[in-house]
């Protein structure tokens, strides 16, 4: 076996690239002992024929090797694997690091470069005009944030600003804040993109650039405490900005945490019964990445008449909707969509409403409900359900 092993096919280990990757990922992969629990738990294992070996990706990162495979881009960074990793490897960090190596070689999947360009030109990843960022507000009256006056900044985020479905969530949230008599403001068209999309597809240097800009903008506006609609924005502010900025000057919360807080303080009252059987789909970036599984449930459980049931997988074991890790900008073949499985779990739990708290989750789940032609299940956001408990006459749609 030994002789002839050193041939042209052999891969020579490149120390330079390894060092670069170690720097990009803080050496996240080094401690991996290659047990493969990550591969085994990865939801792609059930969604797709053939093995998506997360472990092999970790191995490549350990050695500083390029991963040119299509599989590298499948990862939704749902962090199921991280929860099961006996060595506590930050697998999502490693995946993003490997993706960056591919960016360097200009070999990324179609569509991703334009995502970065859109952020660059439009301040959002959705190729939408910056001037329409606050169009969702419509007839609502939301003041521009003033640190002297407002206790919180509502950070709407790109998706809730432009996506028609997500806009409804933003509007519901505004109603709730108003009902709780909260003093808050937003940044209107000047709200900067958080850069999560760039980070999720692995372009860490560009993310760091965006983060620096955004952070600078926040400082100019006197922002210290912000509440996000998307758990993805919440996650970068909370977990990646401090590292990128080398300081920890932003206090970020997810809106479910904020609402739960308002409930506890008895500033928000959800008194109107909502007689629905409801299940909660935990967004990965709320549950696994940020250990928040209680707040959304506290809100739902505060609503009279509402029956909260759990799906087979919930809390930190929740199944991913398939929308993270840049997957929102990539095609997923029908039959391989994670949300399909999730919707079936909701049906199995005999829920009438599947509730979530993330614009990506809402979009993926709703697509799946439509594609599967399911009639007896509605997809709603926590804020939308809470609004129902606020007023006596309000339909699920405006």
């Amino acid at each position, binding site marked *: 076996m030994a002789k002839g092993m050193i041939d042209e096919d052999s891969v020579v280990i490149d120390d330079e690239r390894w060092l670069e990757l170690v720097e990009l990922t803080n050496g996240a992969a080094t401690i991996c002992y290659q047990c493969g629990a990550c591969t085994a738990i990865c939801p792609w294992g059930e969604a797709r024929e053939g093995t998506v070996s997360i472990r092999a990706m970790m*191995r490549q990162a350990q050695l500083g090797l390029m991963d040119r495979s299509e599989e590298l881009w499948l990862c939704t960074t749902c962090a199921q694997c991280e929860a099961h990793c006996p060595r506590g490897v930050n697998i999502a960090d490693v995946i993003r690091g490997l993706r960056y190596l591919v960016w360097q070689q200009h070999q990324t999947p179609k569509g991703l470069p334009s995502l970065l360009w859109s952020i660059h030109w439009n301040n959002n990843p959705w190729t939408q005009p910056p001037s329409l960022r606050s169009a969702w507000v419509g007839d609502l009256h939301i003041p521009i944030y003033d640190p002297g006056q407002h206790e919180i900044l509502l950070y709407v985020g790109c998706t809730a600003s432009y996506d028609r479905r997500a806009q409804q969530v933003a509007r519901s949230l505004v109603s709730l804040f108003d009902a709780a008599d909260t003093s808050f403001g937003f940044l209107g068209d000047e709200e900067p993109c958080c850069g999560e999309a760039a980070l999720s597809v692995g372009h860490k240097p560009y993310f760091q650039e965006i983060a620096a800009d955004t952070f600078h903008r926040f400082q100019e506006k006197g922002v210290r405490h912000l509440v996000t609609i998307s758990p993805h924005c919440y996650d970068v502010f909370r977990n990646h900005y401090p590292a990128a900025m080398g300081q920890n000057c932003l206090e970020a919360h997810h809106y479910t945490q904020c609402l739960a807080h308002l409930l506890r303080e008895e500033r928000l009252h959800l008194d109107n019964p909502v007689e629905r059987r409801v299940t909660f789909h935990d967004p990965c970036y709320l549950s696994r990445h940020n250990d928040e599984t209680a707040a959304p449930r506290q809100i739902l459980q505060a609503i009279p008449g509402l029956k909260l049931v759990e799906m087979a997988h919930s809390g930190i074991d929740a199944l991913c909707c398939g929308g993270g890790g840049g997957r929102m900008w990539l095609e997923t073949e029908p039959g391989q969509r994670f949300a399909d499985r999730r919707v079936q779990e909701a049906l199995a739990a005999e829920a009438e409403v599947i509730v979530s708290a993330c614009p990506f989750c809402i979009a993926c789940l709703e697509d799946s409900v439509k594609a599967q032609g399911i009639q007896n299940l509605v997809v709603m956001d926590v804020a939308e359900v809470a609004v129902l408990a606020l007023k006596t006459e309000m339909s699920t749609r405006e």
Partner: protein
Amino acid sequence: MSDSVLVIGGGIAGIQASLDLAEAGARVVLVEREPTIGGIMAVLDKNFPTLDCSICIEAPKMSEVDLHPNIEILSLAEVESVTGDPGDFRVEIRQRARFVTDECTRCSDCTSVCPVVLPNEYDSGMATRKAIYTPIPQSTPGPYLIDMAQCLNEPPNFLPCDRCYQVCPPKSIDFLMHKERFVTRQVAAIVVAAGYSMLDPRKLREFGYGAHPDILTAMEFERLINSAGPTGGEIIRPSDGRHPGNILFVLCVGSRDRRFYRYCSRFCCMYSIKHAYQAIDHGLEEVTVLYMDIRAYGKGFDSFWSRTNEAGARFVRGRPSRIIPNGESIQVVYEDTENTTRVEENYDMVILANAVIPSHGLSELTERLGIELDEDGFIRAQESQSGLVATTRPGIYAAGCVAGPKDIPDSVAEGSGAAALALSHMTERYWPELPDIEPMAEIESPRVGVFVCHCGSNIAGVVDVEQVVDFAKTLPGVVFAADQMFSCAGNTQKEIEEAIQRENINRVVVAACSPKTHESIFKGVLIRVGLNPYLLEMSNIRNMDSWVHKFDKEAATSKAMDMVSMAVEKAQRLQPLEISHLPLAQSALVIGGGIAGMTAASALARQGFETHLLEKNAHLGGQVDLLNLIAPAGIKASDLLVSRSLDLIQSGVHLHLCTTVETIGGVVGDFRVQLSNGEKLQVGAIVVATGAEAYRPVEFGYGDDPAVITNLDLETLIAHDDVSAERITFISCVGARQGNIGCARYCCTSMISQALQLRKMGKMVRIVSKDIRTYSRQAEELYEQAMAAGVQFFRYDSACSPQQALEFDEGHLGLFDQFLGVNLRIPTDMLVLVSGMRPTADNLTDQLKLARSEDGSLMELHPKLGPAETTTQGVYLAGTSQGAKDVRESMAQALAAAGKAGALLARGVIEKAPLTAQFIEELCIGCMRCVKVCPYSAIEQIGPVGKEGTIKILEAACMGCGTCAAECNFQAIDMPYFTREQILAQIDAALAEKPEEKCLVFTCNWCSYAGADLAGIEKRQYPTSARIIRTMCSARFEEEFVSRSFERGAGAVLITGCRLTDTGSDCHYNYANKLTLKRFNHWQRKMRRKKIEPERLQLQWISAAEGKEFAEKITEMDEVVRRHARVCPVVEEP
């Protein structure tokens, strides 16, 4: 001032420490939290890698503890407080009540009426016990106990219930006993051997424990495969009682896992391999083991792994992410990491190797003791003093898993080692003296007294005791016979004493229960009236008659009469035997001045013995002198050697540098040594610490290519800060894990420590290895640390040698990366070969009659329970001479050797039980067959072959197995208490009536007799045809016993003994049962020529745990007897 030592914990480490201490003249207070000593070893089925039956080898030690006059067992007890200083600690102990007095006869009548059914902890909750119970059949102390918290009489029940009291024949139940009592003891030192607990696998939710009844822990599986367990040794699914078609073993469940315990639990790999092997042995066809690294670090472990592989077990490198119920079966998802394939499989049964964790309550205990715990919650060791044995408080020592996970031999070694250190704090020794009683006169002509016990209704309920007594009175030589309600009860013992004196009885037969549990009691009776204790014979009519023939009272009675007649015949031929006292020089020689030799020598000197340390070189330190840092603790090797050297000088060891042994001879207690410097020594004990040498590689151009060095070369380079290479690659297992050479143990950890040091200098460092075996304390953490620092790890095929798997050429190391499935080239400026160990050659082995293991290292007495002893009495092993070890293991074993040697030397004489072989010189023809077969080299040839009287039996070395007596064709050797004449008389008595309906069963004392006892304890019913004769070892059985049996018309003969398998033997006498097998084959050929059908003479190995197997075999033999009796009915002789 104290002559006592406290031992906390009665598992195998605590048992070993207690026995060594007691032998050395310490009074031992053994405190055990549970109702019985024995610990976890007592409930294990077999031990790896030899597949010894666990309880078979442990039970004799437990009973030795029980009977030792220097040991006080306090069960159900815990230490409350410790005050004072080394040499003078004052210990407060709280002991909970048993509510059953020592009058308990262990008849189990109480348990059958107790209405409270509870899960039995000793069966991992898979079977039940009652509120009054005995944990295991071998429980020590023996009396039953009441679990008062569960008894109906206690709150919250308050239901008056005295069912147990009502049925208890000797009324030994006392509900009014004080619930607890406090006792105070003054001790010189303390040994903590509190063992370990296991992680509740429910905490790892993804592994599904609790979600499906067929997902079990390793301990539960251990009970499933145990004959004495809840299923009688059948592997069946708790869910539906069916045999599983396939089974999966999962390793590292909660170990090596940041979320739970980061350390390696050390012994799970091996027991899981053993489980896999046993599963195949039980007929399971699909056996899979999911592992990450197989840590088969010990002697013979790697070859056991390959054997299990060859037997058909499938080893897959991977770790499940999910184990969930899938209907009746269990779904497991994992990645087969060698094929990069996600696998979803269904299993009928899944076994989890859950992590070893600190013993429950250890932190409270250590707080009371005033000693520190480490970050994982195990006892913190002062490593540079004594490996892992010394704690942070002087005078308190740790042994076994209390200081971190450890397998049995390592725990045993630490038990002995802790004993050695504890002894150094003692100022006095205690030797109990026999009562001074006028010996009875007139014992020449036998006057037999027979006492038949009712044991309440245990015997009398089945056997007609009066009829047996009447029959006994008719037997020749019997001058007195009587029945007794409980022969063992205090007042009844008195009755026996009075009868002996009144009737001038000088041979005593007690027909009652097992000599294994009660002989010592009745020996005491004889001693008290001045009768030699060897004039007693017990007849086991309870365990081997009434308990096993409940439904045939008549046959049981007639069997009891046969048994009594056999005992009387033997008793008539008993002779008084005296314990002999042999000379002993109270000095020791330690050969080899490496770390093991240094440690052993000072520990011996500190016990007060003249100790000589021999070193062939001009300086001490051996291999450790070649090291810079000692991993994983990071101790400077030079610091360690300085502190050890200082200790040597302070303890007063006589140092002989540049000196070797010229000749060495003699026998235990009296070895004569001629040194190379002309000096002569006479010593009582010898510790061989001759060490091992580093393998000098021939691989990868070592020696020619300056870029290729060994790990020891690197150690020097690092010490001199002289590493110029930037890209350094290590290759592990060079000259280790190949052929007969096993794992070198120390090198993974040491290599990783070197790699980490280099990495910290900014080098690019790679390790190319087989399984990473960082099993030792803090070693897994070091491994993790090295990875985090950026040391890259690669795996090569563990079935290949390094040169088969790797190629070094043009500054690159080429290999196939198992993790990625591609060929890689690693840029390498310097290649470090991590080389294994080789045994050193010496001239001692032959002179001391030591054996070598298959890897060439010196062979220990027993791989589990005798790691520091040899088959040559008085010669002990320390350090790497016995097999590869790291520094802390070498030190622990050195202390063990010092403890063992110290126990031997302490008394100044060798006390020898009078069961050693007796030489009848005039019958010897000098054929030397006995010399060849003696398992202990205790017979010396003292003249030319073929001349009369040319052997000498070294009494001090003889262990009394009787192999020689059976081998001798000229009856020139006989075994006291089991003489040829006595056994033949037993045979004749057994076959006096209707011999064709009987099967003679020859048993050995340690296993098969204990197995037969257990069949009784378990009330396993079998036919009444068996007549059991006991000797010490199956190798005692002579051809004449067999031929005489058939001459007398026996229906069948069954030879039994301790288990002998391909992998090992439970034999108490160093594989003497190999001769049993050889002789049996010979007898069978011979009997066939005499037209005795082969099925009438059979051999069956029966372990002490195999009551069921014993009963089954007897049933089978009964069919043989019946078949034979039908085919050729015996014609009545005229």
